[in-house]
């Protein structure tokens, strides 16, 4: 039933008058609530301390990204992608770019692919650090967030060194990287990979064996594997319940099949398991980055210039007429990929981020759909919230690790 008395008409679970004497307490959490990772509003129906019904209300950060996608040329949309999940921007870019390349049939050169993998794994670390910090802060451990944000700064420095921006990186381009890799970057990343395991150990010391942390997370928000699958959860939420699905392993893209890494699976599907899974994922990402650093060819093309959909190399534009003309058309009209539709999924830090693009041959995509993992994972919140305590809601929001940008798009 739709409750029109509220300022914004909200579809409600039927609010029941329990017994004549006991009215349910309906609590509005958000949208500006400090622990709701952006602008998520939750309408909680409480029975004393226990949550009876939990209705997340989203849409406060909806900017109509997909609609915009249908009115921008393919290359112009890239900056939008890193504003959906503003905590892990490069992965978003990567997802979109790979989808377009698949549409156009382009293959980025090997060196670019390696660097894309490194950047993707670094964004996973950055995103997990944000997750760990806020998650611990919500449950009350103040200091952990300080440590995690300190370490995240290092990653952001790398990003800044690589593409000039810390948060909205916009680093991936269709066909590879147009700019050269800064020479001191590999050393910075290698140095980071040496430091980071010690930092992870610091977090584990603070939380993993902490009795209060265990009390607040163990047995809270249990999702059975079949329920997780039915909810369509992906990423750490799914793997927390023991279901083995990682896009990098299931549908390997870039060069993930050349690197050796494990996919951690939880055994109980509660908040604590997802915490352990994500911590283990961070360690695995470090392993991936180190292997990539070893395997990446130190020199070689970064951009698939040979393809007609790719922007011509900068130095040729000024010198050769043909490139300059192609560059002009590419910039003004944009390239028009072949007719058809494509769906490409990427293992984003929150889960499976998928781009579905329908092209009608024109430079502007006919339809652009972003399958954002946060939006899907959020759906499991009401299920987990059933019978949970009020204080658990905060832990549950933390454990599904949502960023409202990618939820609302």
């Amino acid at each position, binding site marked *: 039933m739709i409750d029109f008395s509220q300022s914004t008409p909200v579809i409600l679970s039927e609010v029941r008058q329990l*017994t*004549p*004497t*006991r009215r349910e307490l309906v609590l509005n959490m958000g949208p500006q609530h400090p622990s709701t990772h952006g602008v998520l509003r939750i309408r909680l129906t409480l029975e004393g301390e226990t949550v009876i019904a939990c209705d997340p209300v989203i849409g406060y950060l909806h900017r109509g990204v997909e609609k915009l996608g249908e009115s921008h040329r393919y290359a112009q949309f890239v900056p939008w992608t890193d504003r959906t999940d503003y905590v892990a921007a490069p992965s978003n870019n990567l997802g979109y770019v790979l989808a377009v390349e698949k549409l156009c049939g382009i293959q980025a050169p090997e060196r670019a692919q390696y660097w894309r993998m490194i950047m993707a794994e670094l964004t996973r670390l950055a995103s997990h650090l944000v997750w760990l910090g806020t998650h611990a802060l919500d449950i009350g451990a103040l200091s952990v967030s300080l440590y995690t944000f300190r370490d995240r700064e290092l990653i952001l420095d790398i990003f800044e060194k690589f593409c000039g921006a810390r948060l909205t990186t916009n680093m991936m381009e269709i066909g590879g990287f147009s700019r050269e890799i800064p020479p001191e970057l590999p050393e910075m990343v290698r140095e980071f990979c040496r430091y980071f395991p010690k930092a992870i150990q610091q977090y584990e010391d603070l939380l993993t064996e902490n009795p209060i942390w265990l009390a607040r997370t163990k047995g809270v928000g249990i999702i059975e594997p079949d329920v997780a699958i039915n909810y369509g959860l992906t990423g750490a939420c799914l793997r927390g319940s023991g279901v083995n699905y990682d896009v990098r392993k299931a549908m390997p893209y870039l060069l993930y099949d050349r690197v050796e890494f494990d996919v951690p699976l939880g055994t109980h599907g509660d908040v604590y398991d997802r915490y352990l899974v994500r911590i283990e994922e961070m360690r695995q990402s470090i392993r991936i980055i180190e292997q990539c650093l070893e395997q990446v060819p130190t020199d070689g093309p970064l951009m698939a210039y040979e393809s007609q959909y790719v922007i011509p190399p900068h130095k040729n534009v000024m010198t050769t007429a043909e490139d300059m003309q192609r560059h002009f058309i590419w910039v003004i009209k944009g390239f028009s990929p072949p007719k058809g539709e494509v769906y490409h999924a990427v293992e984003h830090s929150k889960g499976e981020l998928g781009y579905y693009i329908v092209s009608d041959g024109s430079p502007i995509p006919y339809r652009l759909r972003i399958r954002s993992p946060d939006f899907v994972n959020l759906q499991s919140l009401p299920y987990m919230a059933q019978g949970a305590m009020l204080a658990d809601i905060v832990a549950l929001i933390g454990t599904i690790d949502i960023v409202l940008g990618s939820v609302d798009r």
Partner: protein
Amino acid sequence: MTELSATHFLLLSAALFIIGMVGVLTRRNILVIFMCIELMLNAVNVSLIGFAWELHQLTGQVFALFVIAIAAAEAVVGLGIVMALTRRADTVDIDELRQLRE
């Protein structure tokens, strides 16, 4: 009226007791009636202490202690009943709780 004697205590006790009684008789909110009963019990304590003071005996104080203990027990159970009652009848007005009559 110069030296502090049990009479002062007894007068105070009487005053408090009467106020409590009037409260119980006139008020309609169960909880206020409940408080007035506590007031009456307290008045009794005052008189006990008064006598203990005047007769230099501790028995008054000992009894006062027991009265407090029992008043606490009574309060706990009384409030339990009030909770159970209002959960069913959804009213605090003593006059509406007349089911026992039928």
